[in-house]
């Protein structure tokens, strides 16, 4: 069964450093999402991406965040200058047209900012 993959599974970085989280969505899906989950808290929406542009973003997704689909398969989330409060699990999700709106989530990247 097709699945969403994410790399790396874990990332440790120093405050102020840039990180890039990578996702490979399911191949025929058209809509892509990033969510995050701070330890012990709920899953929060960050951004949605369709037709090579951001379709919606939350107030969490400020100027330090950016997304890109550099080729036909990868979908990336970049945090330009990480802060301690960016420490969280980051999930990528994808959605196919006509899929009944069920989003398929990747296994996540655990980001720790020191």
């Amino acid at each position, binding site marked *: 069964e097709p699945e*969403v993959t994410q790399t790396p599974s874990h990332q440790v970085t120093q405050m102020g450093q840039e990180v890039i989280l990578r996702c490979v969505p399911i191949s025929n899906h058209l*809509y892509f*999402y990033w*969510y995050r989950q701070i330890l012990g*808290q*709920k*899953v*929060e*929406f960050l951004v*949605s991406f*369709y037709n090579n542009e951001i*379709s*919606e973003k*939350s107030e969490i997704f400020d100027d330090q965040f950016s997304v890109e689909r550099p080729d036909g398969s990868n979908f990336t989330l970049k945090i330009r200058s990480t802060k301690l409060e960016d420490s969280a*699990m980051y*999930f990528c*999700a994808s*959605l196919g*047209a006509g899929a*009944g*709106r*069920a*989003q*398929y*989530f*990747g*296994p*996540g990247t*655990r980001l720790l900012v020191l």
Partner: protein
Amino acid sequence: SQKIEQNSEALNIQEGKTATLTCNYTNYSPAYLQWYRQDPGRGPVFLLLIRENEKEKRKERLKVTFDTTLKQSLFHITASQPADSATYLCAPGGNAGGTSYGKLTFGQGTILTVHP
């Protein structure tokens, strides 16, 4: 602002019983509502979706209801098993009458533990 509440943080039941989880929402008219399962350290896994014009949906031992008047969804697991132990998340989505393929707004989740 939109608010989603799931009935309790934790629910403990005996194997074989039916687990019933509640999701209430306010200031929102979703076009559909989804239920996901999340295991520790893993991503949410889609279970069921119910649309605003549907009252009930079933899949194997799972049943979900959607009452747009009460602004509530109930999620049932019948003949529960220890393997059903996980956090269950509800996520209303879209806008009633709209065509959004947009974001999911999750509740805080209910931790279900099924005891043998």
